[in-house]
């Protein structure tokens, strides 16, 4: 119940002030956006034109260049949210709230894309759009968790309060995701023995790895750019709420 007067590191202090955070990170957005654009251009050129078809899968391997990065992001974004949730709960860092809130819809979008490309990859490879295999099923469950978190954010009027509650739920989800993954794997091997395609088959040749890596970084940098932009928007949105409340209360402090 006393004020926290312990001195903190200055960069941490500066980052924890919303306005300072925006001022510090805004110059990063444009270079990041440019870098993302270049990476996407290079990745697409490699992925669609320069790289040869794969030996077994043929041209469908090109779906992998958009599927693997989105699938990676679907987990990376959750990790970002979980770390931010820790930031909210343990250090009460104000920007952690904002980061959590900005990441949730992005994560949901990337997870949906991973499922979409996965099923388009599955049709030529397995002959079906949807297969209840371990990976696809747990990604679907992850999508539901993301959407639940987005819904939970929207259900609160007071966003400060929402942040801590959502943080608790995000961490509960983070603890549960490995369990879900394990249980789903257990379940899918039980019901349909090894008929599915395994990605860890033959080692991939360099001409496939190059576009994969470039696209991987392109998507990751895209996420970082969007995340920063969305965080800035969220900081402004909170500022708007504060101003509107003040205006409603009729004082011009």
């Amino acid at each position: 119940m006393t004020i926290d007067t312990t001195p903190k590191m200055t960069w941490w202090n500066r980052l924890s002030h919303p306005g300072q955070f925006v001022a510090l990170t805004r110059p990063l957005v444009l270079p990041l956006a440019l870098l993302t654009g270049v990476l996407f251009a290079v990745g697409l050129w490699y992925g669609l034109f320069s790289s040869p078809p794969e030996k077994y899968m043929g041209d469908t391997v090109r779906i992998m260049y958009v599927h693997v990065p989105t699938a990676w992001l679907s987990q990376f974004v959750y990790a970002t949210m979980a770390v931010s949730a820790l930031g909210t709960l343990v250090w009460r860092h104000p920007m952690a709230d904002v980061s959590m809130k900005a990441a949730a819809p992005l994560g949901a979008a990337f997870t949906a894309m991973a499922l979409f490309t996965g099923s388009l990859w599955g049709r030529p490879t397995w002959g079906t759009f949807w297969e209840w295999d371990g990976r696809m099923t747990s990604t679907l469950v992850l999508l539901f968790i993301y959407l639940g978190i987005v819904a939970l954010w929207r259900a609160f009027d007071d966003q400060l309060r929402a942040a801590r509650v959502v943080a608790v739920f995000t961490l509960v989800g983070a603890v549960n995701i490995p369990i879900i993954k394990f249980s789903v794997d257990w379940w899918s091997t039980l019901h349909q023995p090894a008929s599915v395609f395994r990605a860890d088959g033959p080692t991939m040749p360099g001409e496939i790895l190059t576009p994969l890596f470039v696209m991987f970084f392109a998507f990751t940098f895209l996420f970082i750019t969007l995340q920063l932009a969305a965080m800035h928007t969220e900081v402004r949105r909170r500022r708007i709420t504060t101003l509107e409340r003040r205006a409603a209360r009729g004082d011009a402090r």
Partner: protein
Amino acid sequence: MIALGAHAEFIIAAYVGVFAGLAALIGWTVFAARQTKRRLEELGDGQRANSSAQ
């Protein structure tokens, strides 16, 4: 454009779908950013948009 083999439609659909999704995501982010900026200016806080609170 190179020939995409027997499953061209799936590959095209995947790329079109993903990039439409990305475009929507970027568009939404930019739109939200513009909207909040405009609202802040309406509230007479345009210059202080970067340095909120006291």
